């Protein structure tokens, strides 16, 4: 069984959990993800492998509470077991030949970006991290990012943490100041990634975006996770989750991500009510 070994609240809406899953810990690489179910009738949801420990067989996930399943997950505690936990899925981040990389993360996307930044840093790549949050209460993993980057820029929408502004402002400033990146890696809300890619396209800097469409099986069996990349249909779970950001049809991805919004809102409300009643 997949026991929750550790649970830590990173901010009011973001939680870290370390899960016992030795087979997955043995194989995991940065950029890959798992799919879990909290209980017998639960939905399958994908979460990135934020960290792993091959020795003690644990896999770390960091998730934002956005709906019914993440709400349920957040109500589970150390010592309890997840019903299902499968992985590592997807392709690992490609790091070959990189010398200087800008990692641009937004919100909980920073949890997905951190293992990538760490791996690059360990490989001796010069990493500049630009991370953005709505306000200072939502900032996560700041120390971890600082440790993995030779340059670290913190941005917030309201200026309550770091500089006021968007991650694209910070990235543009660095590029204009003469920083030469051989790749930009961006992970965060679709709208943010869309604008990061638009910017880097202007400067002709190769850019990789990590996509998070709705998934079910995560093995290439359903096609629910499909995206259009360079005019071709790709399955994010097996061909990705990282793709050439300059070729992704972000508008289509945004529409697909909203496919079940009504159902999700209702399910989230119901779950919240349930937990309120229990209390």
């Amino acid at each position, binding site marked *: 069984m997949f026991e929750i070994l550790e649970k830590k609240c990173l901010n009011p809406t973001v939680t870290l959990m370390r899960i016992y899953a030795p*087979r*997955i810990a043995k*194989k995991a690489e940065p950029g890959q993800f798992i799919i879990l*179910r909290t209980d017998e*009738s*639960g*939905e*399958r949801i994908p979460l990135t492998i934020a960290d792993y420990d091959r020795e003690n067989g644990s896999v770390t996930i960091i998730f934002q509470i956005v709906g*019914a*399943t993440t709400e349920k997950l957040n109500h589970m505690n150390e010592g309890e077991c997840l*019903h*299902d*936990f*499968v*992985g*590592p*899925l997807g392709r690992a981040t490609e790091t070959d030949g990189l010398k200087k990389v800008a990692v641009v993360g937004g919100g909980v996307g920073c949890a997905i970006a951190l293992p990538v930044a760490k791996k690059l840093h360990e490989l001796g790549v010069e990493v500049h991290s630009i991370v953005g949050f709505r306000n200072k209460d939502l900032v996560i993993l700041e120390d971890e990012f600082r440790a993995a980057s030779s340059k670290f820029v913190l941005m917030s929408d309201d200026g309550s943490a770091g500089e006021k502004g968007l991650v694209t402002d910070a990235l543009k400033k660095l590029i204009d100041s003469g920083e030469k990146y051989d790749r930009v890696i961006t992970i965060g809300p679709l709208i943010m990634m869309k604008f990061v890619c638009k910017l880097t396209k202007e400067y002709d800097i190769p850019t990789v975006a990590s996509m998070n469409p709705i998934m*079910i*099986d995560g*093995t*290439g*069996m*359903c*096609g*629910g996770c*499909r*995206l*259009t990349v360079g005019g071709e*249909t790709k399955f994010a779970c*097996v061909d990705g989750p990282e793709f050439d950001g300059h070729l992704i049809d972000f508008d*289509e991805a945004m*529409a*697909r991500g*909203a*496919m*079940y919004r009504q*159902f*999700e809102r209702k*399910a989230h409300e119901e779950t919240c009510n349930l937990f309120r009643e229990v209390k």
Partner: protein
Amino acid sequence: MADMTSKRNAMPVQEADVRNRNFSEVALGYTEEQAVAEANRCLNCKNKPCTSGCPVQIDIPAFIAEVAKGDFEAAYKVITKSSSLPAVCGRVCPQETQCESKCVRGIKGEPVAIGRIERFVADWHNANSTAALEKPAPNGHKAAVIGSGPSGLACAGDLAKMGYDVTVFEALHVAGGVLSYGIPEFRLPKTIVQKEIDGLRALGVKIETNTVVGKTVSVDELMQDEGFESVFIGSGAGLPRFMNIKGENLNGVYSANEFLTRINLMKAYREDSSTPIRAGAKAVIVGGGNVAMDAARCAKRLGADVTIVYRRTENELPARAEEVEHAKEEGIAFRFLTNPTEIKADEKGWSKSIVCQEMELSEPDASGRAKPVPKKDAFIELDADCIIMSIGTSPNPLIKSTTSGLDTQKWGGIIADEDGKTSKDGVYAGGDAVTGAATVILAMGAGKKAAAAMDRFMQGK
């Protein structure tokens, strides 16, 4: 003397306009009296034409004779000499093109309802048999099975009965393969699949769900590090095909695999499931196989007005005849000689309609098959806020790309001989992973053959 009535005993079913709103089983099964009466229609032909039509050569006249005598357990024993999944095959085999197509009674009237009798026998056994499964003495050898569809289940069962220590690795959280995630409850109740799986567990088979071979662990690692002497690959043909037409990635467009997985595996039709599903008001299903029929009938049960669009004619529909008949009774419309060319969107990015071109059949080619060819400038547009593509699947490339020395066909099928032996020593394969999308009985048969070959391989080592 056989009962010479030309008509077979009708199968009791749920009323069409009741069942098209629920997910309970459609065909209710013969009573003892009906089974015996139908068995009495068998002429017990000496040359057993029906058996020659069965992909696993069940001794059909022998088991029917036992049913006629009322010895249902004896009938069950006859069937299980050749088949591991009679409760499943009795329900889903395309009998009309196999055993029943060879039945002598079919020349002047209707063939003996072999599938229905088989189903009765298996259900009777499951409900009444008290014989406890005996765990065989272990023979000290370890074998792995990848995939828990009919091929994997059959292979694991036979190996376990010979005393092997068998572990089945399954990518999904539930075992059963297509039997669990593809074929709907109203055609194949999941309790029946579960019963087969419980039976394997009772034989000592270990089933590790949530294990994607090629990701979580590789075939090479299973053999080198985990001590499995032989491996069977029964990973199916689960990769959905799309048509590559405009609008196919719009909201509201599903692959049949996704639609059926949400319903069957994730139980999205039930109130207590957290997984959403949406069949819309007007659903169009593209395709003509069993998968298309299942998707259509599920969409109907979720409240949609359903049309099946197929590019050939009714005569070429590859689905089981009974499913087509049931679909029609349930109020599903068919449009033949119609082929989609584009899906149009509404202003919010959802599918709104599907444009199709009318087709006509060409003269039959050398293989005798008539090809559908588009009629010039003959287009129709059908309203559709849900579109389900069921135009076929192919084997997933994952295992091939992560296993050293495993040869495959260009289209992805694993290359294996009659016994399932592949290009890699000790590795066997069967079912849809080898043949491409086929049938339950062929997959089951391939699993059994491979088990016998794996036994010879491991004993010869």
